[in-house]
């Protein structure tokens, strides 16, 4: 086996372009996927037509608020391109310079200030369905944030006015007028009624005092009602299922596992397929009459190719992890667990590789098959629960279970981040998957002979 391994390493050393591609391509792909996962989504470019007069303010009760305060809330969620007219905005959307345009009409302030009619803004979209969906989602979210900020302001003005009505205070220019509060009214009226002789006036005053008391009690809870109406659901987050993995270190795990997968699968598959393509399988495996066995056994040949893929993949993946640890904080005291997870994952991927190599007839077919199989499996394993229908997610889970990527991702996540499920369960899973694909490779090789 060592002679064959030495031969393969020599051939690999002479295939510099292949080695460069084998290392650069998966690492680049993995880094791109890692960045895509860890980076926050970019703001969509949106044209804004603000038709309101400059410096216009919204009057809410006694409070005046600049419109800019709310439009800024909206603009924080998009990349703003200011244009003067609706026609220019529509042209920019049509040409693809911006993904959408928002037109703020000149009467928006008067409508908000009126408190009885709803203000309306216009949104202009273009692009394909996916783009529209993304932009709609971003703009709806931004408008919701602006609406929330505005309703908070309306709520606080209303709560202030209610408080004035209940507790009394000074109103008018420079607090020139003293307002009696609804809460003081029953007691004052009762005192006046007590001084009145019995009769209709006293009875009327007593009834008014009762009504004032009832009104004060009911208006007392109105502030809480307004708070609830302005933000019906407040979110409090609780994470179950073990330790939470930071997004950047999870992205590292994804990037490393994808690189490991490609190197192991491609090398192992290519190694077996190359022996077949160069007509070497029969030379190596034939059981010559008189001597009993072949030059190498089928098991040795498969083990050699799996080792080739696993060792090369392990070296690159481990170097990646160490290199990344210079930029992202990784717990280096867990390095022993990294090695364990990487080793099992590498052999899991290599087993898949030798199975592909044994079933394919030539190197190109094996490489193509390795790509066609590996990439979708990686994406399937990254589909989060709840993002697709339950039945589909279960099907994805079942497919991911019989291939090594998901188990390798979980093993690495457990080793690097201490995430759940634990390393032991993932390693056991990888071991099972390795045996399964090794058996499949043995079957494929027997067919190939």
């Amino acid at each position, binding site marked *: 086996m060592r002679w064959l391994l030495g*031969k393969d390493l020599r051939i690999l050393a002479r295939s510099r372009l292949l080695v460069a591609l084998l290392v650069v391509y998966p690492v680049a792909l993995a880094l791109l996927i890692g960045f895509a996962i860890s980076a926050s989504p970019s703001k969509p470019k949106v044209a804004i037509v603000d038709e309101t007069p400059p410096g216009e303010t919204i009057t809410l009760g006694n409070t005046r608020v600049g419109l800019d305060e709310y439009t800024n809330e909206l603009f924080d969620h998009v990349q703003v391109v200011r244009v003067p007219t609706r026609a220019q905005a529509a042209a920019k959307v049509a040409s693809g310079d911006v993904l959408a345009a928002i037109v703020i009409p000149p009467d928006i302030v008067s409508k908000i200030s009126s408190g009885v009619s709803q203000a309306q803004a216009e949104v202009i979209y273009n692009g394909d369905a996916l783009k529209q969906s993304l932009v709609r989602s971003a703009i709806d979210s931004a408008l919701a944030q602006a609406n929330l900020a505005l309703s908070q302001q309306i709520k606080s003005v209303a709560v202030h006015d209610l408080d004035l009505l209940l507790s009394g205070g000074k109103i008018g220019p420079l607090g020139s007028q003293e307002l009696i509060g609804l809460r003081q009214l029953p007691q004052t009226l009762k005192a006046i009624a007590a001084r009145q002789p019995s009769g209709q006036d006293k009875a009327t005053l007593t009834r008014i005092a009762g009504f004032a008391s009832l009104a004060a009690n009911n208006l007392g809870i109105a502030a809480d009602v307004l708070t609830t109406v302005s933000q019906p659901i407040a979110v409090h987050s609780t994470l179950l299922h073990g330790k939470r993995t930071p997004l950047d270190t999870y992205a590292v795990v994804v990037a490393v596992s994808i690189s490991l997968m490609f190197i192991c699968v491609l090398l192992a598959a290519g190694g077996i397929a190359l022996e077949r393509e160069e007509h070497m399988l029969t030379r190596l495996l034939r059981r010559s009459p008189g001597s009993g066995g072949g030059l190498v056994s089928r098991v040795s040949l498969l083990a050699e190719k799996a080792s080739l893929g696993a060792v090369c993949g392990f070296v690159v993946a481990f170097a990646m992890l160490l290199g990344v640890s210079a930029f992202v904080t990784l717990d280096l005291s867990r390095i022993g667990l990294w090695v364990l997870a990487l080793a099992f994952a590498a052999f899991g991927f290599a087993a898949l590789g030798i199975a592909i190599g044994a079933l394919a007839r030539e190197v190109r077919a094996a490489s193509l098959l390795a790509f066609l199989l590996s990439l979708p499996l990686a994406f399937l394993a990254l589909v989060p629960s709840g993002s697709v229908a339950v039945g589909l997610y279960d099907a994805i889970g079942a497919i991911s279970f019989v291939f090594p990527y998901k188990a390798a991702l979980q093993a690495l996540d457990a080793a690097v981040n201490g995430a759940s499920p634990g390393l032991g369960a993932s390693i056991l899973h990888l071991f099972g998957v390795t045996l399964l694909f090794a058996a499949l490779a043995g079957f494929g090789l027997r067919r190939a002979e």
Partner: protein
Amino acid sequence: MSQAGLDAPAGGRPGSEPALGARGLGKLYGKRQALSEVSFDAHAGEMVAVIGPNGAGKTTLLSILAGVQRPSAGTLVHGEGAAGSRVGWVPQNLALYSKLTVAENLRLFARLERVEDPERALARMLEQTGLADRADDRVARLSGGNRQRVNVALGLLADPPVVLLDEPTSALDPTQRERLWGFIVGLAERGACVVFSTHVVGEAERYAQRVLVLDGGRLQFDGAPAKLLAEGGSEDFERAFVAFLAKRESP
């Protein structure tokens, strides 16, 4: 069907121990009978040619003799004098590592064959195949003829007592063929049992002491080339071979 062609005793040297023999070999590919009831012996120092039309079962027979495939029926006989040795095999398709040099290919297989002194075996094969000056060239850069010589050399590294060659000259020009046959004849002269298949029936007449004619997976003739000439009723070996097959087909 006449059995005249099989009247000769199996093996060219009655009484001597065969280096390699077949007893009732058969091979089924699904429902197709590729080989049926093939029996013969081959002896040390003998060159045996296997000829026949396309699809006759020549490659199947040689690959069973080499241990590449298992027979569906029958057994192989391996001479006691060759016990423990591997049968040397030169496949029809070049089986070489094109990214390795000639010497690296030979050295690797000398080690895999567990040859006692791999470097000596390497030097011997380079000298015998006339490839010493190309030892450090990668196989991918060799001509078709030189690649075939390396292909043959890999089959002979362990100095096997039995050598099987499946159409060894199919990709070579006439000069390269002559050189290769000179080399193969030398093996037989040194005592090896050589069994080869060929499409060029003239090579069978020229180099083999015995000819096996396969047709439809059955052994139709086992004897000296001169006997096949007589059976075919022609002085030209190729015509005699074609006439022999035609006679077999018509009752």
